[in-house]
């Protein structure tokens, strides 16, 4: 598969190099809000949305900074823009769709501290994606994040009913589960390169 095609970029971000399970980005929300499937789903959607917005803004900023030849301010600009993008999204959603706002609840502001968003902006810059590629990349990353969150939430809901040794309750068990999921996701690795 052509490494620059939109399909490949999407699949690569969603499955092969899943942000959570292969690149360890966005672990805080992954461990924090994966206890129930419904909250996981909402968190996933909100993150995907913010990813899309910040990917577009990051693309614009990078273009501007490159034109002005002040790339060394990139990191500061990215983090400032992401923080404001989250605020903006929060206000917009609140104004136009109060129902959705209530559903997302506290998850929106939490996204600012999600390193998956900053990671997305940085990776798309390093890999020199053009505009459409950046869009495909952010959609893939968001879909992969949601998928990982949902899988984890499903597992943890089942685990509620199981009897486990008292030492392994909580974070330790979640990490072991994440390890198993990550192991399973490694099976996707061959997707891109097996044929010319």
């Amino acid at each position, binding site marked *: 598969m052509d490494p620059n095609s939109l399909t490949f970029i999407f699949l690569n971000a969603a499955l092969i190099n899943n942000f959570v*399970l*292969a*690149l*360890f*980005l*966005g*672990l*805080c929300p992954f*461990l924090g809000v994966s206890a129930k499937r419904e909250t996981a789903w909402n968190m996933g959607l909100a993150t995907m949305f913010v990813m899309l917005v910040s990917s577009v803004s990051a693309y614009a900023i990078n273009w501007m900074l490159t034109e002005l030849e002040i790339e*060394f*301010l990139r*990191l*500061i600009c990215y*983090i*400032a823009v992401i*923080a404001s993008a989250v605020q903006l999204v929060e206000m917009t959603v609140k104004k136009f769709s109060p129902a959705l706002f209530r559903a997302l609840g506290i998850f929106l502001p939490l996204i600012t*501290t*999600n*390193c998956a*968003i*900053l*990671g997305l902006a*940085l*990776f798309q810059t*390093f890999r020199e994606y053009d505009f459409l590629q950046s869009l495909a990349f952010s959609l893939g990353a968001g879909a992969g994040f949601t998928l990982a969150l949902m899988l984890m939430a499903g597992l943890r809901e089942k685990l509620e009913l199981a009897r486990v040794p*008292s*030492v*392994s309750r*909580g*974070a*330790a*068990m979640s*990490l*072991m589960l*994440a*390890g*198993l999921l*990550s*192991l399973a996701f*490694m099976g996707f690795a061959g997707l891109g390169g097996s044929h010319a």
Partner: protein
Amino acid sequence: MSALPNREEKITLDTFLRGLWEENPVFVMLLGLCPVLAVTNSTMNAIAMGLATTFVLVASSTLVSLLRRVIPKQVRIATYIIIIATFVTIVDYVIQAISLDLYNALGAFIQLIVANCVILGRAEAYASKQRVGASVVNALGMGAGFTVALLCLGTVRELLGAGTILGFQIFSANFEPWVVMILPPGGFFVLGAWLLLFEYLKQRKERKLLDSEGAIS
């Protein structure tokens, strides 16, 4: 929190040690996990990441503490983020100047120090309320705790995954490396195992305490 507003601490040994053990950012508070898992596939990377994070932590805590009386409450988070991003950019360029190999190994994770919640957490919860001295000592402790945690993961993963530590062969040549330890799942497993160990130790201590109390009464 509101019960003790603006109580300025005296610097004690505890100010430093707290970050190492009692409030260890990784093992106890589970903060900043992304770099902990992502760059600990070798000891060298773990050390470099730990030092870089400690530098940013100490520098930003110092500045935040110095400016704590002039930063208005409403814009404090934005100010902290700008300060942190500045120091991270500096670290980024310094590491590039020291060694390109190291820079390539750590990848984007140097710049992702910005999003490490340990640093913002320290600025908000400690440095913004305490004197400079105490803030620096506390940040050093937290940084040390973070570095130790990275080392705990890095050495185990490198030893089991490649049979080496810092590149030196530890196991005999017959040792078949557990490749999975260097791969992403290994990071989750090793951190999970450390947490299990600490939880076990904690529960054993509690049980002993209970037993001895029972004996007294």
